[in-house]
């Protein structure tokens, strides 16, 4: 293949000082590999954070009465919730749809009392929309929709000094404002790993909840899990179509239900990308230094080619081409090295001392398996590439002021 002389000249200029070129490429490879690894971990963690948080309880969407999301009033309900949930399951052909109710109540054991949020859940469908049933470590999750049974978190059990088989008294206000009270047997204790959940949540069968809180077949939300997070946009209008306008119900997606999650991710992205930006700037300065040295030591040669009729603009493009070659090598090698490191940790798992406690706060596992995607592989290196080209603009523009005669007088 014929490579034109300008490209050949640029390539050979790049390798005039192999050690210097390799040092520059090395800095790029290091930063690119680091960026690929860090961004893979970061984006993977966001996916897991969203997935785990939504899987734990929220689901991808919820059907609620208007205003319930911001003001959890008992009387803001979804009427005849079990029927609506069944209709949605059948029309959408999705199994992972379940009705749920919620109330604040005082739970009392023989020794102690704690205020908790009690959820009424459908034992048959709740495991499809929440990971709590699968996190029961002692006992079992209720199976009968009307059984007077309760499941509580590990921390709450410790605080109340109870275990499975004990009874708890439940006191609260019903949907109609009347006094709600019941006694339920602890059949299971769950350990979600999320301290807030384990300390302040209790779950009872939806039928039992309806009896205690006078719900009259209503519930507070229908929780829906789409086949994937990315399918939410597709399913949301379909759910809205199936709702009766007369009920005036609304559909909230996960972003509306968990606004803090997206904000936390955005805050983390901002701080992380600030650090990445500093890394890119450092690499850009290294490239600028290399190219500036390269231009200065070739002043005599630039004088020669200018005397032959080559314009400073063309010489500037030659310098940019040389920089592009170095940056491209850094991009390819950096993405390769970073991709391989990420793949290795994707296979072996990544962790560090203290990560388990930190991860638990964000509903994440203690060992993380980063995944390589096209975005995580090239996002960082593309910024390093662009930064390098921008940094070479100064040495390239400097050639505009080179005077051929003075340049040829300079030392070879």
């Amino acid at each position: 293949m014929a490579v034109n002389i300008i490209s050949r000249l640029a390539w050979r200029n790049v390798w005039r000082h192999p050690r210097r070129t390799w040092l520059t490429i090395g800095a790029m490879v290091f930063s690119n590999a680091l960026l690929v690894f860090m961004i893979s971990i970061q984006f993977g963690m966001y996916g897991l954070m969203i997935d785990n948080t939504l899987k734990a309880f929220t689901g991808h969407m919820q059907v609620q009465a208007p205003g319930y999301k911001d003001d959890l009033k008992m009387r803001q309900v979804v009427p005849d919730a079990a029927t609506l949930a069944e209709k949605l399951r059948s029309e959408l052909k999705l199994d992972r749809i379940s009705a749920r109710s919620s109330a604040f109540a005082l739970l009392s054991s023989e020794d102690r009392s704690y205020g908790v949020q009690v959820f009424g859940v459908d034992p048959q469908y709740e495991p499809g929309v929440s990971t709590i049933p699968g996190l029961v470590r002692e006992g079992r999750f209720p199976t009968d929709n009307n059984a007077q049974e309760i499941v509580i978190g590990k921390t709450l059990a410790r605080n109340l000094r109870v275990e499975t088989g004990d009874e708890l008294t439940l006191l609260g206000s019903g949907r109609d404002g009347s006094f709600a009270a019941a006694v339920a047997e602890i059949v299971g204790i769950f350990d979600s790993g999320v301290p807030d959940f384990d300390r302040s949540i209790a779950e009872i069968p939806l039928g039992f909840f309806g009896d205690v809180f006078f719900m009259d077949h209503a519930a507070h939300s229908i929780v829906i899990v789409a086949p994937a997070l990315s399918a939410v946009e597709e399913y949301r209008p379909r759910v809205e179509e199936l709702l009766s306008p007369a009920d005036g119900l609304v559909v909230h997606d996960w972003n509306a239900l968990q606004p803090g999650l997206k904000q936390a991710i955005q805050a983390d992205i901002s701080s992380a990308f600030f650090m990445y930006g500093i890394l890119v700037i450092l690499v850009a300065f290294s490239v600028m230094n290399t190219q500036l040295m390269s231009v200065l030591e070739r002043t005599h040669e630039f004088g020669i080619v200018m005397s032959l009729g080559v314009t400073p603009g063309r010489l500037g493009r030659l310098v940019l081409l040389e920089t592009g070659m170095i940056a491209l090598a850094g991009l390819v090698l950096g993405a390769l090295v970073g991709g391989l490191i990420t793949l290795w940790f994707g296979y072996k798992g990544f962790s560090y001392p203290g990560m388990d406690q930190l991860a638990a706060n964000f509903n994440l596992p203690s060992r993380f398996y980063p995944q390589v995607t096209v975005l995580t592989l090239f996002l960082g290196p593309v910024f390093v590439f662009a930064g390098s080209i921008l940094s070479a603009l100064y040495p390239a523009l400097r050639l505009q002021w080179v005077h051929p005669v003075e340049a040829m007088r300079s030392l070879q």
Partner: protein
Amino acid sequence: MSAVRCVDLCKTYRQGDQDIKALDHVDLEISDGGFVCLSAPSGGGKTTLLNAIGGLDKPDTGEVWIAEQRIDQMSKGELAALRLSQIGFVFQAYNLIPVLSARENIEFVMQVQGQPTALRRDKAMAILREVGLAGLEDRRPAEMSGGQQQRVAVARAIVSRPALVLADEPTANLDSTTSDGLMALFVDLNQNHNTTFVIATHDQRVMGYAKRLIRMLDGKIVDDIDQQAA
């Protein structure tokens, strides 16, 4: 038509505390197909005059015309285009691009001119044969002798058949045989292609080839001899 016309050229350099008059009211006209040697002691102004004619350096005052175009007021880009299309330079120090082979050094200018790959390759090989460097086309400057490098530099200057060739001490680093070969090539181009040559030199043998000999001293033309008439 005149190939080169200089009108009242002045150029002063500052060297330490002193002002050096490199060109002092120089008037010069060289016709198409001229073969002119500029002779002067060191610092006499011949290189400055060559640079001014080639548009590499601007005079302080005066006018420079190349092929009826005034060039002392041209922009950098216009001057570069003029040099690329009409002027060939040969330097004393060869000034080849060290990372390119002999053929690539010659092709480089043609690529900048936008000539197609096959044509410039053929032309480069032909000119290398013409200057006696067939078989050395893939050698880089560091792998060639001074004479061979100078011949590559000459080949680079004349490959596009420029109307004007400016040569600054082209034989200074060559032995007499190579010098004679180079001058024979210049004479051939001058006679058969009507190429105008302006050569700055100290070399009496080179001066012998010139149709016209101009002597300079302290930036002034002190003698202008038509050697054909003599």
